[in-house]
């Protein structure tokens, strides 16, 4: 052996420490860059007014409102379906081929690239069902996208409830449905909500699925129905970063938009982490 095995270990471990630092460094580089450049742009006016002068000035209010609509719409669709799906898999069906099949399918759905959801949403919701470019079409598409995430987190939450609670409830004469409603779901609630929060973070950042189902390039008014188009934060960032009327002039707006997006994601992650700790 040419190298002492102690020295070898020292070198290897130092390298791994360095790599750990590097990964943390990358995150702080990205966050720092966006916060440093974006913080000066954020103001009450920036958050509450519409873009002006070819999106080189003004605020991003319509984009924030649009993203809120999409988050609300997609979660309202996906959350009940996801939770019910998980309840069925964990409480009703035993560990048979059906459940294994559903689990594999859910995993597969989760691994489909977001642009494929965009294509699918465009043919099914926009064209075949005739929703047009609308909040409804966008919400359906985004809802499908986060469904696997909601199912997975809910299933884990349900699995964490000890079986004795279920048998105890059943022994007291409660029916299965009553047990689920009154015992299992309330106990699993904090963890289920964690999944909900994570999916809010995910939906607010997705761009590819909304490109062809809902996103408007520039629409400085609030939506008036489920069938109106809206602007959305991630699409707005993409537009002003790559194809705005004056890319240099709209850079500050892009930093501001990126910061708002990052803050939403950070907040959601933080909220989920706190909820997990509370349990």
């Amino acid at each position: 052996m040419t190298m002492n095995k102690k020295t070898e270990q020292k070198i290897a471990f130092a390298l791994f420490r360095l790599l750990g630092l590097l990964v943390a460094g990358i995150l702080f580089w990205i966050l720092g860059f966006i916060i440093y450049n974006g913080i000066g742009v954020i103001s009450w006016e920036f958050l509450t007014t519409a873009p002006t002068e070819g999106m080189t000035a003004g605020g991003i209010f319509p984009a924030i409102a649009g993203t809120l609509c999409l988050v609300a719409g997609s979660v309202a669709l996906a959350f009940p379906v996801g939770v019910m799906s998980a309840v069925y898999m964990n409480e009703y069906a035993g560990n048979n081929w059906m459940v294994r099949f559903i689990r594999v399918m859910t995993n597969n759905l989760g691994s489909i690239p977001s642009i494929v959801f965009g294509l699918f949403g465009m043919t099914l919701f926009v064209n075949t069902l005739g929703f047009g470019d609308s909040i409804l079409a966008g919400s359906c598409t985004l809802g499908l996208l986060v469904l696997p995430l909601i199912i997975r987190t809910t299933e884990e939450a349900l699995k964490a409830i000890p079986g004795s609670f279920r048998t105890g409830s059943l022994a007291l004469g409660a029916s299965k449905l009553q047990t689920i409603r009154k015992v299992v779901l309330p106990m699993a609630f904090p963890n289920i909500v964690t999944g909900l929060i994570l999916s809010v973070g995910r939906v607010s950042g997705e761009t590819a699925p909304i490109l062809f189902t809902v996103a408007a390039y520039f629409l400085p008014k609030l939506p008036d129905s489920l069938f109106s188009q809206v602007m959305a934060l991630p699409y707005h960032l993409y537009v002003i970063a790559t194809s705005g009327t004056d890319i240099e002039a709209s850079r500050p707006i892009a930093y501001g938009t990126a910061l708002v997006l990052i803050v939403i994601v950070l907040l959601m992650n933080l909220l989920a982490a706190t909820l997990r700790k509370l349990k």
Partner: protein
Amino acid sequence: MKRLRLITERLAEAALALSGSVSSLAILLIIVFLFREGLGLFGSSSVEKGYALCVHSSNPVEQLTPQQVKQIFDRELTDWREAGGRQGEIVPFRFDELFSLYSEEELGEDGELLAQRLGEVIARTPDVIAFVPEEYLPRGNRAVKVLPAEKISPSAFFGGREWLPTATPAPQFGVLPLIMGTVWVSLFAILIALPLGLGVAIYMSELAGARIRKLLKPTIELLAGIPSVVYGFFGLAVLAPLIRETLHLPVGETAFAGSLILAIMALPTIITIAEDAMRRTPLAMREASLALGATPWQTIYRVVVPCASSGIMAAVVLGTGRAVGETMAVLMVTGNAAVMPHSLFQPVRAIPATIAAELGEAPAGGAHYQSLFLLGCILFAITMLISVSAEYISGKNSGKEI
């Protein structure tokens, strides 16, 4: 009362079962809709819809491939001999040239003489090839021969080296440059991310104390949570200029920039899964190795890593899946030139980015639109394959537990 309760129970169970089937149904629908639109491409004509190509009836050429048509109108193919005809310089003629040849009166007030004039042009130019709207075809004219439009074939699609979906008169749908773009960008992303991710996973599972781990874990989760469009923006605003200046390239938006961003994006997936796999190595195995006199480092690379190898494989496969399907970040930083890549330091275009960039402009139902759906099908098939193989690999892993 009791009956009512029983009915509610049954109804609830049915509703729950129905919800359970939604994800399977969604996949089924995705397959049906994607492939229905995408496979339509192979039935459609390689010449733009509503248009036709015609030549002089004395011309012996009966059929031209889409590639030949494109070369003729690009003036790359100039002699009929090269297209299987007799000698003579090809005269490409586009419909709008008619308006510079004839005055408004000669063409008729409502264009009713357009077809007739077109027939005249073709009749007096034996080596002409004209690209005209079908409604203005001089049908009765004996001097005019309409070339049958060739159907787009799977071999032209999968083997074609040119992606020019908006070229007239013959758009080219060769998917090879896009596939190669995706392969290059994802491959190098994984080559960068694998050693990095593996190192961090080893650090987190074997070396770091509980406190550092508690700090590093949420950091990595955050890295996974940042929206891809923000990564794209970061790549555009920071990485691309950095690459351009340090490597003295004409543009910074290259395959290399895409690989770097994708590597960062694939890191959380690789780290999390590889770390989980390493943590599952039984304590007994580590202790046995240490008792035999191995150092902790030797234990790691001789015992822990081999034992977690299938988990690490799954991590790589899933990281690749993330990289292959990533759209926005790649769209924003790779420069989007649909050419066969020759080096890492030139702009390339990946499959998802192509769909995102072009679908907005492709008329619904046209060949371009269908070709983009077919790209979606390819992407879908690749990610399904990746997802299933990752499941197979980690399934093997869980069976190995002691």
